[in-house]
């Protein structure tokens, strides 16, 4: 049951509209109920080949050798693809925004860093033949010690998961292993508080579990281009990622998608597109690479786990005077998007409350597990869980009704937030009031009368004295180049090839190599941190 409470903020809305606000039927609904909506896997292509990957059985191991001889001779096999066949076998997704260092190979070469990491791909006439060929590949692994706990990973002497980040943590601003948030003086507030409460919370990893698994079909198009039918959540994000990994100009790729069987964040990583296109380049045939359900569940990137410590100071009257958060994002073996979630998380602390002293350190930590990625509520869901459980405990501690406790501490228009921006367009108080009313949860009259639009600002708008930070803060260096205007670069040598490359690999860049100066033509992106790393 859903009702609209039009009496709230009515003076801020223009209700005189024709189409907006109407319960118009979805444009795609007839297609959905007739089964004619066309997803990436519903395109018919003659001569379709199937790609499957061999995945690491170890959480962490050195690759001493790979023998693909038998697989190459197996029935139905058209091509075996190794790391050396990938033109630029090292990437990080956010290099498109010039954020972070390339740290993840498309196919592992020297080491595997998580169980399930792709090592070799096979393109065959049928999925079954591809699987049968994979079973004949022999990889000589030397297992290495692995680390799975974020706090263990940060200790001295922990196994190094990802050599690009030897301290097992993402590097922020070229100097810190975490993102800081500093607002006021939490230590002083803790010393002066009536009560303190420190708790540890653990968000589990979560699988996106869209009913359509990740996948794509790539095929040679006319004029040396490749068409890619894809379920990518960011069409150009995936296209540009592939153009970089495959070292082709972006206009060699034609991506078609936009109709996706659920995503929830799990289809941002271009898990299948680079290899499928490479397969199409190497065989000259359409290549389909779709994850099976077990692959999707075990090795498709999940929502990462987060461990969060929250320490609060609260007064007898219910005012929260300080909140200190230390949070660890479990990024798995590679960065993907977790480095960004850290920023989003830091900005979100201390939640929708006006607290005069806030301190947070948020880490992106590498462990030997499947790389994590975005999911619905990325960077926020877990910290909301921690903060709101903490709020319940604080209300219990000071003996105040939890609804009233929220309203008492809620941010209001004009307040200064911990990331030093004014709160505007707030509505937390009204949401609490209406939810309480709907649930027949009694709150006192004075709390029913409060408003997000009154009582904020004034002293609550001030940026407090913050010990240990330079006035005005240090500014990062000027923005620099990104993948969108990458400089000429020779084809990259594989990081480490312990064995001879597979026999006679035709150049993967056969369809007219890109003039290295080709530019995407899109707006230049700049980076949060300005450190150009490629």
């Amino acid at each position, binding site marked *: *049951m*859903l009702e*609209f*409470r*039009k009496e709230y*903020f009515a003076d801020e809305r223009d209700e005189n*509209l*024709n*189409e907006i*606000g*109407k319960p118009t*039927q*979805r444009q*795609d609904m007839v297609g959905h109920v007739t089964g004619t909506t066309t997803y990436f896997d519903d395109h018919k292509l003659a001569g379709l080949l199937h790609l499957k990957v061999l995945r690491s059985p170890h959480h962490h191991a050195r690759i001493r050798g790979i023998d693909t001889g038998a697989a190459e001779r197996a029935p139905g096999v058209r091509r075996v693809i190794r790391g050396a066949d990938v033109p630029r076998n090292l990437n990080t997704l*956010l290099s498109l925004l010039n954020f972070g260092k390339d740290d993840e190979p498309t196919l592992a070469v020297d080491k595997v860093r998580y169980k399930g990491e792709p090592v070799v791909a096979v393109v065959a006439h049928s999925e079954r033949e591809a699987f049968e060929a994979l079973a004949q590949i022999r990889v000589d692994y030397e297992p290495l010690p692995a680390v*799975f706990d974020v706090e263990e990973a940060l200790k001295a002497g922990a196994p190094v998961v990802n050599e690009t980040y030897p301290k097992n943590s993402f590097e*922020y601003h070229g100097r810190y292993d975490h*993102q*800081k948030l*500093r607002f006021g003086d939490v230590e002083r507030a803790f010393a002066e508080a009536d009560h303190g409460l420190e708790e540890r919370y*653990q968000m*589990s990893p979560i699988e996106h*579990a869209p009913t359509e698994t990740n996948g794509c079909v790539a095929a040679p198009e006319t004029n040396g281009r490749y068409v890619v039918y894809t379920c990518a*959540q960011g069409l*150009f994000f995936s*296209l540009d990622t592939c153009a970089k990994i495959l070292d082709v100009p972006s206009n060699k790729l034609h*991506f*078609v*998608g*936009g109709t996706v069987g*659920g995503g*929830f964040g799990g*289809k941002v990583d271009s898990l299948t597109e680079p290899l499928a296109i490479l397969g199409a380049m190497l065989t000259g045939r359409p290549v389909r690479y779709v994850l099976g*359900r*077990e692959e999707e569940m075990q090795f498709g990137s999940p929502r990462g*786990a987060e461990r969060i410590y929250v320490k609060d100071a609260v007064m007898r009257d219910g005012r929260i005077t300080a909140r200190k958060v230390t949070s660890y994002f*479990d990024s798995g073996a590679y960065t993907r998007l977790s480095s*960004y979630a850290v920023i*989003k998380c830091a900005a*979100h602390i201390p939640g*929708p409350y006006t607290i005069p002293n806030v301190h947070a350190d948020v880490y992106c930590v590498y462990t030997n597990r499947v790389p994590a990625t*975005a999911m619905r*509520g990325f960077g926020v*869901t877990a910290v*909301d869980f*921690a903060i709101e459980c903490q709020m319940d405990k604080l209300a219990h501690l000071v003996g105040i009704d*939890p*609804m009233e406790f929220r309203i008492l501490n809620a941010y209001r228009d004009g307040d200064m937030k911990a990331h*030093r*921006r004014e709160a*505007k367009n707030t509505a*937390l108080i009204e*949401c609490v009031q209406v939810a309480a009313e*709907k649930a027949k949860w009694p709150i006192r009259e004075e709390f029913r009368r409060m408003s997000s639009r009154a009582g904020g600002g004034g002293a609550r708008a001030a940026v407090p004295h*913050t010990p240990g930070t*330079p006035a005005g803060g*240090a500014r*990062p260096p000027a923005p620099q180049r990104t993948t969108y205007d990458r400089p000429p670069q020779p084809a990259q040598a594989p990081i480490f090839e312990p064995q001879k490359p597979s026999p006679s690999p035709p150049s993967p860049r056969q369809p007219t190599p890109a003039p290295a100066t080709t530019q995407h033509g899109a*707006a230049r992106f*700049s980076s949060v941190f300005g450190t150009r790393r490629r």
Partner: protein
Amino acid sequence: MAKHRGRGMAAINYPIGMNLGGDPSQALVHSNPSGKFTVALSSIDLGQGMKSVTRQICAETLGVPVEDVYVDTADSDTGPHCMGSFASRGTHRVGNAVMAAAREARGVMMEAAAEELEVNASDLETDGRGNIHVKGAPHRSIAVKDVAIAAQFKQGKTISGRGIFLVPLSEVDPETGEMSPATCYAHACLVAEIEVDDETGEVAMVRMDSAYELGRALNPKLVEQQLVGGAWMGVSHALYETPEPYYPDPSHGPRDFNEYVMPGPGDICPHDIAVLERPAPDGPFGGKGPGEMCANPVLPAVANAIFNAIGVRINDLPITPEKVLRALKAQGGARPQARR
């Protein structure tokens, strides 16, 4: 052994859009000679309704019926650049880009109509039903279809528009974390009522009551879809799901939907929702984006309800029967708190 009921609540806000390297989206709008419009995007419809909401935004801005607009997405050859569908950015960022493109197309359409009616374009208005008329004189009117024909075959005008919406990069201060991470925020408060079986450790949902503030609800049915489905996912995250049940121990990972457990149609509960609309000053018609935030209040509300029911605090998700039983054992049994 008994079943214990409890209620818990949580309140949240949620940032709309990402801001790491600048957050742009583009849109193109054009009319065919019959006055039917196509919106070309490279944005993604994951089921959240991108095609549908941008269609309504375009129709409203052009002043034509929604049936006269079709959204074509996503083809990288025809759809201009968009960052993608994530970070609750679709409605806000893409919606704004579509508005800008539709405004430009509307400008040409009104000029073409003005030429046909021999008046100033500024004297014209649309009726939202496919006609353009002189303000205050509805009889001096021309159909959008006839304007399109005239523009194409007589005047040589393209009724089309380009739009981009860019939230520029916000730098992040390394020392203080000062930044502009988002342009607006959605809000919610949710009350969960649950029942804990202290013999099996199972937690059953009894009901949910909630209030969500998400800017203007551009399409109330699409909003309802997100809120109902998102709250279900919140329950699933709170009580059921994980690919690593003994995290950080990576073993015992599920391989199929028999092992990866989610609430089925028999595990859902009534959910009464109130929608509040405080328009975002920079949103398309005030819209924000309900897609992600709807799940978030459910997790802590359920955890707080479990405390209310049996007196144990479980700080590790998901709150499985195993964790409930272990917590009850450690506590020496259920200690129901004051009923709410």
